[in-house]
């Protein structure tokens, strides 16, 4: 491992700075967490900071009893598994040939600029919707994972990591008779675990956080992913202003519950908090390259 100086003061300063930054990052989550465990009036009055006032768990009880919430949760899990897998395969498959120079792979530059072009230009929401509609994908889980199958940003990222892998590795593999497929999966993938963990994280999180496509492409509430469901809950409050129907206003006044929403947001974050440490382990294991003696 690396040798470090024992400048303790520098270390202390660094630790403190990081801790302060971490505290500020935690603030909104702690605040939401505190609200989710508070009483309704306290939550609405904006007097809750980082500690619950009138501690109670009624919001969580309600969330755990909410069928819609869990159905959407299931849709999201399905989406992440399916979408994450598709993204992973496509990213790896595209990044490898694109990491070749144009000499080794004529046509590489054409592909590259084609991809960049696709990333930057779009025909707008309506033609996009019409295309997916005419492919018969509306309201199906495929509508959430196929249009996002190519994560261009991730491809470019991974391609750059692949480029940084020493040529000797690949040449050695080729000498041993390994073709491109074998080289990719037996040599490139194992040595790029940190980068793969990063792009996988991005695609998982991207799928987990996406709400807009769910709203546009899913016609029924049952098929909404979790973030679409949550987004709707929170935005709903403002629609009180848009109705003059007495019964409707009455109902809306009763459901306007900040703490319930806070509880839902907290629960929705749990899976990501569980997955992240698992992926994290690959970020620190960047010693693989060191094992190759030149």
């Amino acid at each position, binding site marked *: 491992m690396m040798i470090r100086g024992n400048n303790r003061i520098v270390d202390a300063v660094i630790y403190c700075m990081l801790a302060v930054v971490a505290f500020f990052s935690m603030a909104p989550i702690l605040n939401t967490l505190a609200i989710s465990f508070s009483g309704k009036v306290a939550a609405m009055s904006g007097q809750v900071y980082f500690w619950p006032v009138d501690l109670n768990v009624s919001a969580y009880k309600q969330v755990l009893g909410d069928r819609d919430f869990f159905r959407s949760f299931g849709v999201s899990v399905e989406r992440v598994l399916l979408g994450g897998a598709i993204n992973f395969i496509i990213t790896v498959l595209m990044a490898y040939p694109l990491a070749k120079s144009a000499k080794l792979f004529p046509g590489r530059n054409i592909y590259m600029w084609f991809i960049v072009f696709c990333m930057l230009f779009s025909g707008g929401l309506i033609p996009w*919707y019409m295309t997916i509609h005419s492919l018969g994908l509306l309201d199906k889980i495929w509508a959430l994972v196929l249009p996002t199958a190519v994560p261009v940003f991730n491809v470019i990222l991974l391609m750059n990591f692949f480029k940084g892998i020493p040529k000797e590795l690949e040449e050695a593999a080729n000498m041993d008779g390994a073709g491109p497929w074998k080289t990719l999966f037996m040599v490139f993938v194992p040595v790029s675990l940190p980068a793969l963990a990063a792009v996988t994280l991005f695609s998982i999180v991207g799928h987990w956080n996406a709400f807009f496509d769910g709203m546009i492409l899913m016609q029924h509430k049952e098929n909404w992913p979790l973030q679409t469901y949550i987004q*709707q809950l929170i935005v709903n409050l403002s629609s009180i*202003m848009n109705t003059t129907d007495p019964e409707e206003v009455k109902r809306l006044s009763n459901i306007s519950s900040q703490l319930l929403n806070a509880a839902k947001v907290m629960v929705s974050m749990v899976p990501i908090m569980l997955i992240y440490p698992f992926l994290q382990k690959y970020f620190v294991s960047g010693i693989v390259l060191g094992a190759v003696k030149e």
Partner: protein
Amino acid sequence: MKAKALSLLLCASVAMSLTACGSNNADESGNQAAAANSETGSNDASATNTEPAAKDDGPFTKYDEQITVSLGRQGVSGNNLPDGDTLENNKFLKYVEDRLNVKVKYEFSVEDMDAYNQKVNLTIASSTIPDIMVVNEQQFKRLAKAGSLADLTDIYEKYSSPLIKEYYSSYSDDRVLNTGRIDGKLYGLPNTNIDGSYQLLWVRKDWLDKLNLKVPSSIEDVKAVAKAFKEQDPDGNGKPDTVGLLGDKSIVGDGGFFTFDPIFNLNHSYPKSWFKDDSGNVVYGSTTPETKQALAQLSEMYKDGLIDKEFLTRKWEDNAGLVSSGRAGILFAPWFAGWMLSDNVKADPNAEWVPVAGPVDGEGKRNVVPSAPSGTFLVVSKNAEHPEAALKMLSVEYEGIRLIDPASQEIYKDKGVSWLNYPLNLQLDFQDALARDIPVYDKVLQDNDMKDLPARLIPRVNSILKNHKEPKKDIAAFADSLAFYVAGAVTGAKEIAKVNPIFYGSTETMVKRGANLDKLENETFLRIITGAAPIDDFDKFVTTWKSTGGDTVAKEVEESIK
């Protein structure tokens, strides 16, 4: 004799209770036919229908063979259906389906208003609209212009129940239904916005008493109360944590919470509405000298700390939070704020909110601009196979919503399920729906007798009675009582003076330039109120407003009312 008088009154006013009325009452015949029809659901019953011509086919006639209707719907937020029922599969829906032998297929259902509009726009843009949906004014006009809608003129006459027609005719000059007409043809069924959604002045009576203040009536009273509430620690907790009058950054708006409409109206200023001045010119309410005067007044109040300093950054729920946590005791809001205020009473049973028709002007009047007659439209696709199904479903549905059909009274009884779970979410009611029931409540409280009440009123009357017996014991009953009864009565107070605008809706330039003009207006007004700009910026605003499209809009308005 008394009971008889009451039942007659009910017949005339509620016009849907069959049980109490004699059949000699002419006003009743239509409804009776409707109700009789609903009970049997057969063809021969429609012989007694008001329209003999429709012998074999009327609002309630069941289809011989099942038909399918596709529907786009805004969903029900916070829906409280029991037993795993959903919007797309519930007993209200089934009731309508069974009575008409119709199968409703939901093309899409989303809850949030923006999301719903998005969906509707996408279906319009991609030419895939469902048979029936409810759209806003702009979407309605666009669809009609593109020729995508079925002409409902004859269908409406033939297939809508007498009750539906009565709702529409309760608005003078057919002004609601007219909003659904284009070139004399009916292309959409408008919803009806009932009277009384203007802001009342709500004050905490317990705080007034504590500080020895009287219930405010004039603007001077309001100022004094706001000042006292802010400065004299009305909650007695020893901390300066109370605020004065609450506010909202939308400044004015029909049915808006915390908006300043009453202060403008007091000065005879009516921002965002269109009028004719004394010489017959079309004038935009936001540009009048009276508006300048009201802004000066508001700016003064803000400077003196009488208006919540931070109203610009408060959202609806923030203000509601200030109220429920007992930090605010004076605000403007419509009658239906009763439910929001009940949160405060729940937390603090001493809290006592009273609604007032004020502040009043020099002549003792609280001037108000009546709501636009409608805002949403039920439309039927030109390609729908059974366009009449829309009217039939609506007719059946309203028999259910108003509990006219005894069978419908049993569905989800006492479960408080929203009527929005019926397939068509078009809100219809009498113009004076709010005020007309007040005497009924008075009467019930006086006699403590619930006999002869129409079924639809029973839940409300129960709440009112319950709260009367044990005030504030049951918060839900308290809230119902505060809104429907106490505040509902104030909306009909003698101080209320209606000022009718000459125009509702939007013109072409409004759609095109509206964003600029609104931005200019809101920005200027808020800057003046908060003291970021001097009051004389108002004159600049008027000039700019006129030159950047306002004059054109005014011409279009003039054109449209000819």
